[in-house]
Protein backbone atom coordinates (compact mmCIF):
# COMPACT_ATOMS: atom_id res chain seq x y z
CA UNK A 1 0.00 0.00 0.00
CA UNK A 2 2.72 2.45 1.02
CA UNK A 3 4.86 1.42 -1.95
CA UNK A 4 1.99 2.19 -4.29
CA UNK A 5 1.52 5.65 -2.77
CA UNK A 6 5.21 6.41 -3.18
CA UNK A 7 5.14 5.18 -6.79
CA UNK A 8 2.11 7.35 -7.59
CA UNK A 9 3.77 10.40 -6.05
CA UNK A 10 6.97 9.64 -7.99
CA UNK A 11 5.13 9.24 -11.29
CA UNK A 12 3.17 12.45 -10.76
CA UNK A 13 6.40 14.26 -9.88
CA UNK A 14 8.07 13.05 -13.08
CA UNK A 15 5.06 14.11 -15.17
CA UNK A 16 5.02 17.51 -13.43
CA UNK A 17 8.73 18.08 -14.03
CA UNK A 18 8.32 17.13 -17.69
CA UNK A 19 5.37 19.46 -18.16
CA UNK A 20 7.23 22.30 -16.45
CA UNK A 21 10.25 21.70 -18.67
CA UNK A 22 8.10 21.72 -21.82
CA UNK A 23 6.45 24.96 -20.68
CA UNK A 24 9.85 26.48 -19.93
CA UNK A 25 11.10 25.54 -23.41
CA UNK A 26 7.90 26.89 -24.96
CA UNK A 27 8.17 30.24 -23.20
CA UNK A 28 11.91 30.84 -23.44
CA UNK A 29 12.76 28.72 -26.48
CA UNK A 30 15.15 30.65 -28.68
CA UNK A 31 16.30 29.62 -32.10
CA UNK A 32 13.21 27.44 -32.38
CA UNK A 33 10.84 28.27 -35.23
CA UNK A 34 7.48 29.27 -33.79
CA UNK A 35 4.33 28.67 -35.74
CA UNK A 36 3.26 32.25 -34.97
CA UNK A 37 5.64 33.69 -37.57
CA UNK A 38 4.42 31.31 -40.28
CA UNK A 39 0.77 31.93 -39.38
CA UNK A 40 0.99 35.73 -39.10
CA UNK A 41 2.92 35.92 -42.37
CA UNK A 42 0.18 34.08 -44.26
CA UNK A 43 -2.85 35.78 -42.72
CA UNK A 44 -3.37 37.92 -45.89
CA UNK A 45 -3.88 34.67 -47.85
CA UNK A 46 -6.62 33.42 -45.51
CA UNK A 47 -9.46 35.74 -46.54
CA UNK A 48 -9.80 37.33 -43.07
CA UNK A 49 -7.55 39.79 -41.26
CA UNK A 50 -8.06 38.49 -37.71
CA UNK A 51 -5.18 36.01 -37.15
CA UNK A 52 -7.17 33.89 -34.67
CA UNK A 53 -10.07 33.47 -37.10
CA UNK A 54 -7.57 32.72 -39.88
CA UNK A 55 -6.05 29.94 -37.76
CA UNK A 56 -9.42 28.55 -36.64
CA UNK A 57 -11.28 28.56 -39.94
CA UNK A 58 -8.47 28.24 -42.47
CA UNK A 59 -5.05 27.05 -41.31
CA UNK A 60 -6.36 24.61 -38.72
CA UNK A 61 -9.86 24.10 -40.07
CA UNK A 62 -9.67 20.42 -39.14
CA UNK A 63 -9.65 21.41 -35.46
CA UNK A 64 -12.81 23.43 -35.85
CA UNK A 65 -14.57 20.77 -37.91
CA UNK A 66 -13.74 18.10 -35.33
CA UNK A 67 -14.76 20.43 -32.51
CA UNK A 68 -18.19 20.77 -34.10
CA UNK A 69 -18.25 16.98 -34.32
CA UNK A 70 -17.46 16.80 -30.57
CA UNK A 71 -20.38 19.14 -29.87
CA UNK A 72 -22.63 16.94 -32.00
CA UNK A 73 -21.46 13.79 -30.20
CA UNK A 74 -22.04 15.42 -26.80
CA UNK A 75 -25.58 16.53 -27.61
CA UNK A 76 -26.42 13.10 -29.05
CA UNK A 77 -25.15 11.55 -25.82
CA UNK A 78 -27.25 13.96 -23.75
CA UNK A 79 -30.37 13.26 -25.83
CA UNK A 80 -29.87 9.52 -25.62
CA UNK A 81 -30.03 9.82 -21.81
CA UNK A 82 -33.76 10.59 -22.06
CA UNK A 83 -36.23 13.44 -22.30
CA UNK A 84 -35.47 16.86 -20.83
CA UNK A 85 -36.07 17.30 -17.14
CA UNK A 86 -39.05 19.29 -15.95
CA UNK A 87 -38.31 22.93 -16.61
CA UNK A 88 -38.15 25.71 -14.14
CA UNK A 89 -41.33 27.38 -12.99
CA UNK A 90 -42.38 30.36 -15.10
CA UNK A 91 -40.41 33.40 -14.02
CA UNK A 92 -41.96 36.41 -12.37
CA UNK A 93 -43.05 39.43 -14.41
CA UNK A 94 -39.74 41.25 -13.84
CA UNK A 95 -37.64 38.33 -15.10
CA UNK A 96 -40.00 37.81 -18.05
CA UNK A 97 -39.85 41.43 -19.19
CA UNK A 98 -36.09 41.43 -18.69
CA UNK A 99 -35.88 38.31 -20.87
CA UNK A 100 -37.94 39.84 -23.65
CA UNK A 101 -35.57 42.80 -23.85
CA UNK A 102 -32.24 41.03 -23.22
CA UNK A 103 -32.72 38.02 -25.54
CA UNK A 104 -33.15 40.13 -28.73
CA UNK A 105 -30.06 42.12 -27.68
CA UNK A 106 -28.12 38.87 -27.24
CA UNK A 107 -29.16 37.73 -30.72
CA UNK A 108 -28.14 41.11 -32.16
CA UNK A 109 -24.81 40.95 -30.31
CA UNK A 110 -24.28 37.42 -31.67
CA UNK A 111 -24.75 38.69 -35.24
CA UNK A 112 -22.26 41.49 -34.57
CA UNK A 113 -19.74 39.05 -33.03
CA UNK A 114 -20.04 36.80 -36.06
CA UNK A 115 -19.35 39.62 -38.50
CA UNK A 116 -16.60 41.34 -36.51
CA UNK A 117 -14.69 38.04 -36.20
CA UNK A 118 -13.23 38.63 -39.68
CA UNK A 119 -11.08 41.56 -38.61
CA UNK A 120 -11.15 41.83 -34.79
CA UNK A 121 -11.65 39.58 -31.76
CA UNK A 122 -14.91 37.70 -32.23
CA UNK A 123 -16.17 34.85 -34.35
CA UNK A 124 -18.43 31.84 -34.46
CA UNK A 125 -17.64 30.59 -30.93
CA UNK A 126 -18.29 33.86 -29.17
CA UNK A 127 -21.44 34.39 -31.22
CA UNK A 128 -22.60 30.83 -30.51
CA UNK A 129 -21.94 31.30 -26.79
CA UNK A 130 -24.15 34.42 -26.81
CA UNK A 131 -26.95 32.49 -28.53
CA UNK A 132 -26.54 29.69 -25.99
CA UNK A 133 -26.73 32.24 -23.17
CA UNK A 134 -30.00 33.54 -24.65
CA UNK A 135 -31.36 29.98 -24.55
CA UNK A 136 -30.23 29.46 -20.95
CA UNK A 137 -31.91 32.73 -19.98
CA UNK A 138 -35.20 31.72 -21.63
CA UNK A 139 -34.98 28.36 -19.88
CA UNK A 140 -34.44 30.03 -16.49
CA UNK A 141 -37.45 32.26 -17.17
CA UNK A 142 -39.60 29.14 -17.47
CA UNK A 143 -39.62 28.15 -21.13
CA UNK A 144 -39.46 24.35 -21.20
CA UNK A 145 -37.71 24.28 -24.60
CA UNK A 146 -35.30 27.19 -23.94
CA UNK A 147 -36.62 29.02 -26.99
CA UNK A 148 -35.36 26.29 -29.31
CA UNK A 149 -37.30 25.60 -32.52
CA UNK A 150 -39.47 22.53 -33.15
CA UNK A 151 -37.66 19.15 -32.96
CA UNK A 152 -37.31 18.82 -36.74
CA UNK A 153 -35.76 22.25 -37.16
CA UNK A 154 -33.67 21.74 -34.02
CA UNK A 155 -32.15 18.54 -35.40
CA UNK A 156 -31.22 20.39 -38.58
CA UNK A 157 -29.69 23.22 -36.52
CA UNK A 158 -27.66 20.72 -34.47
CA UNK A 159 -26.04 19.11 -37.54
CA UNK A 160 -25.86 22.27 -39.67
CA UNK A 161 -22.30 23.18 -38.64
CA UNK A 162 -20.76 19.79 -39.42
CA UNK A 163 -22.90 19.45 -42.56
CA UNK A 164 -21.99 22.84 -44.07
CA UNK A 165 -18.32 22.49 -43.09
CA UNK A 166 -17.98 18.99 -44.59
CA UNK A 167 -19.99 19.79 -47.72
CA UNK A 168 -17.89 22.91 -48.37
CA UNK A 169 -14.73 20.85 -47.99
CA UNK A 170 -16.03 18.08 -50.27
CA UNK A 171 -17.14 20.57 -52.93
CA UNK A 172 -13.71 22.26 -52.75
CA UNK A 173 -12.07 18.86 -53.14
CA UNK A 174 -14.30 18.05 -56.14
CA UNK A 175 -13.32 21.32 -57.82
CA UNK A 176 -9.65 20.50 -57.34
CA UNK A 177 -8.74 22.90 -54.51
CA UNK A 178 -8.22 20.16 -51.93
CA UNK A 179 -10.07 19.19 -48.76
CA UNK A 180 -10.51 22.28 -46.55
CA UNK A 181 -8.13 24.48 -48.56
CA UNK A 182 -9.98 27.65 -49.43
CA UNK A 183 -9.10 29.47 -52.68
CA UNK A 184 -8.22 33.03 -51.72
CA UNK A 185 -10.79 34.58 -54.08
CA UNK A 186 -13.76 33.09 -52.21
CA UNK A 187 -12.11 32.39 -48.84
CA UNK A 188 -13.77 35.32 -47.06
CA UNK A 189 -17.31 34.38 -48.06
CA UNK A 190 -16.70 30.69 -47.54
CA UNK A 191 -15.44 31.37 -44.01
CA UNK A 192 -18.41 33.65 -43.29
CA UNK A 193 -20.80 30.98 -44.63
CA UNK A 194 -19.24 28.23 -42.49
CA UNK A 195 -19.06 30.49 -39.43
CA UNK A 196 -22.76 31.37 -39.75
CA UNK A 197 -23.70 27.70 -39.78
CA UNK A 198 -21.29 27.01 -36.90
CA UNK A 199 -22.78 29.87 -34.85
CA UNK A 200 -26.31 28.48 -35.21
CA UNK A 201 -25.11 24.99 -34.34
CA UNK A 202 -23.04 26.06 -31.32
CA UNK A 203 -25.87 28.25 -29.98
CA UNK A 204 -28.53 25.57 -30.45
CA UNK A 205 -26.28 22.85 -29.01
CA UNK A 206 -25.34 24.83 -25.89
CA UNK A 207 -28.95 25.79 -25.22
CA UNK A 208 -30.10 22.19 -25.83
CA UNK A 209 -27.33 20.83 -23.58
CA UNK A 210 -28.59 23.05 -20.77
CA UNK A 211 -31.97 21.27 -20.93
CA UNK A 212 -30.16 18.01 -19.99
CA UNK A 213 -32.23 15.85 -22.37
CA UNK A 214 -34.24 15.87 -25.55
CA UNK A 215 -36.52 18.93 -25.42
CA UNK A 216 -40.28 18.33 -25.42
CA UNK A 217 -42.10 18.57 -28.74
CA UNK A 218 -44.58 21.03 -27.26
CA UNK A 219 -43.88 23.75 -24.78
CA UNK A 220 -45.03 22.94 -21.29
CA UNK A 221 -45.16 26.59 -20.41
CA UNK A 222 -46.32 28.64 -23.39
CA UNK A 223 -44.32 31.86 -23.70
CA UNK A 224 -46.03 34.95 -22.43
CA UNK A 225 -45.22 36.89 -25.56
CA UNK A 226 -42.45 36.98 -28.16
CA UNK A 227 -38.88 35.79 -27.88
CA UNK A 228 -39.63 32.13 -28.55
CA UNK A 229 -37.20 31.70 -31.44
CA UNK A 230 -33.47 31.51 -31.11
Amino acid at each position, binding site marked *: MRVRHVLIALALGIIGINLGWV*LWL*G*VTGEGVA*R*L*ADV*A*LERVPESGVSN*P*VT*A*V*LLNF*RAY*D*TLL*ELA*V*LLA*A*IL*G*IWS*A*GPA*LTGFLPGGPVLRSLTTSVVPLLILAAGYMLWVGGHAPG*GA*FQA*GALLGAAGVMLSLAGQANAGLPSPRVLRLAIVLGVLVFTMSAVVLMATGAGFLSFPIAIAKWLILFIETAATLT*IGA*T*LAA*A*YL*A*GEPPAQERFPPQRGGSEL
Partner: protein
Amino acid sequence: MHEPLLRKLIALNVTGAGVFHVLVAVAYRGLDAAPDPIPQALVLTGIVVAVSATALALVLGQRLGGRQ
Protein backbone atom coordinates in the same frame (compact mmCIF):
# COMPACT_ATOMS: atom_id res chain seq x y z
CA MET B 1 -26.36 14.43 -8.43
CA HIS B 2 -23.59 12.03 -7.45
CA GLU B 3 -21.41 14.16 -5.17
CA PRO B 4 -17.94 12.69 -5.82
CA LEU B 5 -18.58 13.02 -9.56
CA LEU B 6 -19.59 16.65 -9.11
CA ARG B 7 -16.38 17.30 -7.19
CA LYS B 8 -14.31 15.64 -9.91
CA LEU B 9 -16.04 17.70 -12.59
CA ILE B 10 -15.36 20.93 -10.72
CA ALA B 11 -11.72 19.90 -10.23
CA LEU B 12 -11.42 19.05 -13.92
CA ASN B 13 -12.89 22.41 -14.92
CA VAL B 14 -10.58 24.32 -12.57
CA THR B 15 -7.59 22.44 -14.01
CA GLY B 16 -8.83 23.11 -17.54
CA ALA B 17 -9.29 26.82 -16.85
CA GLY B 18 -5.71 26.92 -15.54
CA VAL B 19 -4.38 25.23 -18.68
CA PHE B 20 -6.32 27.67 -20.87
CA HIS B 21 -4.87 30.63 -18.98
CA VAL B 22 -1.34 29.26 -19.31
CA LEU B 23 -1.87 28.78 -23.05
CA VAL B 24 -3.18 32.34 -23.44
CA ALA B 25 -0.15 33.61 -21.49
CA VAL B 26 2.22 31.56 -23.67
CA ALA B 27 0.84 33.43 -26.71
CA TYR B 28 2.55 36.62 -25.44
CA ARG B 29 5.59 37.41 -27.57
CA GLY B 30 6.64 40.81 -26.32
CA LEU B 31 5.12 44.27 -26.34
CA ASP B 32 6.02 45.04 -29.95
CA ALA B 33 4.92 41.73 -31.49
CA ALA B 34 1.46 40.39 -32.23
CA PRO B 35 0.50 37.51 -29.91
CA ASP B 36 0.79 33.98 -31.25
CA PRO B 37 -2.66 33.22 -32.71
CA ILE B 38 -2.28 29.44 -32.55
CA PRO B 39 -2.49 28.91 -28.75
CA GLN B 40 -5.42 31.36 -28.71
CA ALA B 41 -7.26 29.35 -31.36
CA LEU B 42 -6.49 26.15 -29.44
CA VAL B 43 -7.96 27.68 -26.27
CA LEU B 44 -11.15 28.69 -28.12
CA THR B 45 -11.56 25.15 -29.39
CA GLY B 46 -10.68 23.75 -25.98
CA ILE B 47 -13.30 25.82 -24.15
CA VAL B 48 -16.12 24.53 -26.34
CA VAL B 49 -14.95 20.94 -26.01
CA ALA B 50 -14.61 21.31 -22.22
CA VAL B 51 -18.09 22.80 -21.90
CA SER B 52 -19.72 20.07 -23.98
CA ALA B 53 -17.84 17.29 -22.17
CA THR B 54 -18.87 18.78 -18.80
CA ALA B 55 -22.49 18.99 -19.93
CA LEU B 56 -22.48 15.34 -21.03
CA ALA B 57 -20.84 14.23 -17.77
CA LEU B 58 -23.37 16.22 -15.71
CA VAL B 59 -26.30 14.65 -17.55
CA LEU B 60 -24.86 11.14 -17.16
CA GLY B 61 -24.21 11.77 -13.47
CA GLN B 62 -27.72 13.07 -12.98
CA ARG B 63 -29.26 9.99 -14.62
CA LEU B 64 -26.96 7.67 -12.67
CA GLY B 65 -27.96 9.39 -9.45
CA GLY B 66 -31.53 8.32 -10.17
CA ARG B 67 -33.07 11.39 -8.59
CA GLN B 68 -34.47 14.29 -10.59
